[in-house]
């Protein structure tokens, strides 16, 4: 693995830092009293196969610069995917122009200087892989083949995809901060179709990592896709009832995603959240604790600073069911008289603490109820906490899976659902920004037959 300062990416970062500095200088010249700019660039390869043949080969090259300028307390923003010097100058001009029409808002401005990360640590996010289209295609073919050959009921494929991307992110503002770092991301996925009688089902599996060696082997991805697809065949509806529900680890992160929306500064100052005035109150059952660890080496959601340059740091989010912090970017923080927490642009590696060994243990604790493995639709209202989504999964009796279930909904209110969490498994899903095991909720309304 090449990871030396000789890698051209470091020269690229220096060039981009230069471009960001120039944009900031240009903004100042045009009358901005403060400014911030971010630039990212990604390049790489995406290939896919279907039914044993090459489907697509894509060469990716994406990038953009976004700038916000402040003329006094007036803000203007502009962005461009065209990175020619002429386009960069023109967006700066446009942003300054826009600031003439926006309001004098004292909450505007770049983040407070004291909060900025002036010397970001290296989080080991960059593991370039000089992979050829042919190699990528091999991974796809292997994954898909393993799935198609797994069982004769796997009758068709939606294909397999492999992508390897490397890129950089640079952020700068008028407090003199200009920082950047490189990062990589490699993924392999496949989706296959199973058929038994009239019913067709599809499911997919994927692996993702910052480094080549972090990917699962292709065959295992294929087998996982085949197994999940087969498990869904001959699914049926169940009766309308109230029942305990387990959210399997790979979809349980969505529950904490709703928490992220509900304790974000934007939702709070707009009073648009069911968790208004909930800081340091019990919002979960006491078995729930969540820690944030932004500096995990090679972490998929690791970042030394947030999208405003504010330092990210280890935090308790939930302790013993109690909310420890809101998630604040500068604007909302000023609106609410609070301090930015390094959450502009999102969260960084939330680790939900386990209470049980694994999924089996969680199902055993539930006894009889519904294991949800798939959710559909966006039926979540963050203002009220009302929750109603399409679902599929398995019916469970005495801790044992009985048969697949589909075409049902699960509904409740997130306030009750959070307080109703009774167990969290050690089957931790690590592929997202929230790392959690399966989550047991005491009771939800199922609608089916």
């Amino acid at each position: 693995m090449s990871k030396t300062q000789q890698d051209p990416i470091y020269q690229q970062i220096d060039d981009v830092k230069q471009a960001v500095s120039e944009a900031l200088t240009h903004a100042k010249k045009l009358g901005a009293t403060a400014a911030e700019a971010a630039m990212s660039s990604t390049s790489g390869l995406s290939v896919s196969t279907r039914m044993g043949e090459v489907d697509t080969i894509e060469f990716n090259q994406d990038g953009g610069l976004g700038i916000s300028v402040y003329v006094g307390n007036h803000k203007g923003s502009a962005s461009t995917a065209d990175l020619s010097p002429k386009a960069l100058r023109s967006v700066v001009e446009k942003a300054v122009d826009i600031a003439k029409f926006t309001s004098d808002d004292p909450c505007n401005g770049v983040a407070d200087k004291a909060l900025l990360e002036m010397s970001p640590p290296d989080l080991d996010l960059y593991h370039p892989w000089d992979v050829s289209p042919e190699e990528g295609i091999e991974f796809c073919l292997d994954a898909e083949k393993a799935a198609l050959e797994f069982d004769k009921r796997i009758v068709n494929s939606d294909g397999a995809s492999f992508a390897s991307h490397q890129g950089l992110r640079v952020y700068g503002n008028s407090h003199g901060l200009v920082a950047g770092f490189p990062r990589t991301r490699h993924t392999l996925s496949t989706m296959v179709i199973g058929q038994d009688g009239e019913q067709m089902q599809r499911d997919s599996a994927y692996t993702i990592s910052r480094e080549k060696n972090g990917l699962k082997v292709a065959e295992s991805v294929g087998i996982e896709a085949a197994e999940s697809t087969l498990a869904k065949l001959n699914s049926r509806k169940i009766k309308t009832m109230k029942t305990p529900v387990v959210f399997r680890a790979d979809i349980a992160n969505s529950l904490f995603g709703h928490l992220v929306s509900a304790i974000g500064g934007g939702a709070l100052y707009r009073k648009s959240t069911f968790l208004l005035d909930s800081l340091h109150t019990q919002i979960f059952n006491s078995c729930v604790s969540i820690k944030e660890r932004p500096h995990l080496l090679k972490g998929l959601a690791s970042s030394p600073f947030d999208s405003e340059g504010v330092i990210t740091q280890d935090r308790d989010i939930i302790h013993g069911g109690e909310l420890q912090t809101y998630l604040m970017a500068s604007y909302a923080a000023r609106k609410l008289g609070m301090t930015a927490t390094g959450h502009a642009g999102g969260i960084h590696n939330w680790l939900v603490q386990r209470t049980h060994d694994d999924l089996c243990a969680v199902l055993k604790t539930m006894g009889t109820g519904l294991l949800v493995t798939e959710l559909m639709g966006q039926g979540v209202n963050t203002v009220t906490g009302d929750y109603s989504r399409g679902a599929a999964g398995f019916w469970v009796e005495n801790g044992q899976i009985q048969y697949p279930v589909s075409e049902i909904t699960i509904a409740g209110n997130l306030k009750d659902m959070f307080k109703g969490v009774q167990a969290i498994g050690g089957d931790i899903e690590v592929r997202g920004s929230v790392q959690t095991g399966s989550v047991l909720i005491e009771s939800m309304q199922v609608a089916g037959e």
Partner: protein
Amino acid sequence: MNNVEQHLLADSQLTREQLEQTLNYIHQHQVDYADLYFQSSYNETWVLEDGIVKDGSYNIERGVGVRALSGEKTGFSYSDAINFDALSKAAMAARSIAQSGESKKVQVFSDIAVKQQFAAVQPITKMADADKVALLREIEAHIRDIAPDAQQVVSSISAVYEEVLIAASDGTFATDIRPLIRLNCSVLLEKNGRRERGGAGGGARLDYGYFKELVDGKPRWLEYAEEAVRMARVNLEAVDAPAGAMPVVLGAGWPGVLLHEAVGHGLEGDFNRKEASAFSGKVGQQVASELCTVVDDGTLADRRGSLNVDDEGTPAAYNVLIEKGILKGYMQDKLNARLMGVAPTGNGRRESYAHLPMPRMTNTYMLPGEDTPADIISSVKKGIFASNFGGGQVDITSGKFVFSASEAYLIENGKITRPIKGATLIGNGPDVMHKVSMVGNDLQLDRGVGVCGKDGQSVPVGVGQPSLKIDEITVGGTA
């Protein structure tokens, strides 16, 4: 030479001859088809939040995508720089999908004559920035006026001005100008400690003047503002929705998201070519009740989902998907049409030059039937009437789809009684379409707010339908 060709080619020192040369270079490999897609797009948004013009933003995107097709295979590369060097590099990458060798001749360009479904306006420059802000202030003032108890009011307008140029080895040469505007307002009300939001908006392929046009004596923006307040008030009174399978009456217009999810996606050519859809191999079969005739129509004047030409240069069309319940055909782009041995239908769309085209919907709607909306409601003893929806989603393979009601009411003994909270409805596309038992005479299209996502690509779409009754579908309430 028209303006688009001037902006995208001549201003970058590119000529038609160089495009032909690039396509010929790609065709030195064994490819069936190649195309070049030039695009420049400008996008702005203005937001007014509680009297504060919070932020205006402006975005520029510009680039060229190069695609080579060989059998079922696609090679694709793109660049955010438009010049001959970048074009040649992208062409070299794209043609690597196929080996060198004999391939079809590149056809001489012939300009596609386009019937204009909307005018080539520039919405961003047509109205002064100060007037855009003034419009937002007017909206907020009106909302505060009719809802002095509003806790929070947000309104926004946005516009896109896009130019595209498509040159393909089958001789297609097309240019297009695509304006698109949106207005949105939302209000938060509080009553007895309960907070609820209401929102409304609209859009079209026009300039911002559209929002000031009078409809029944009222400017459009004012109607949206009143609608947002009305929605929030209804939500404040809503009781828990019922849970279980029951008859559901869908209102006219935006509830047509039903068609988008239950049948639309399942009738896109790519899924059917791959036999991955619940509707695969069913052309000529009864896939819905005979009351259902569903079309995808890119030719409606000024509509959000309309196109002059699609992103492969195929003119937009009126395509009958289902006629009296019988499946007539799929929506196609050039790749899937060729592989299935049918003609492209004007549904080849892409989010940008940096994305590959695929079959996508335009405006999808159901033709009117004969029942009056009142008769449909009174035919239901116990069920719900859903008049407004949020988004939806479908698994095209199993046919399962959801869509989430954002405004709904109980129907008891043929009468609409109380408002109920939002709930997700779930069904199986082919099943549910067979259960459509009454179709109203009140076809409406949505207000122009739809966005459809597929494979990570978003495109603007429209939906519509008359009021209709589904005899049974699962309603995901809590009561």
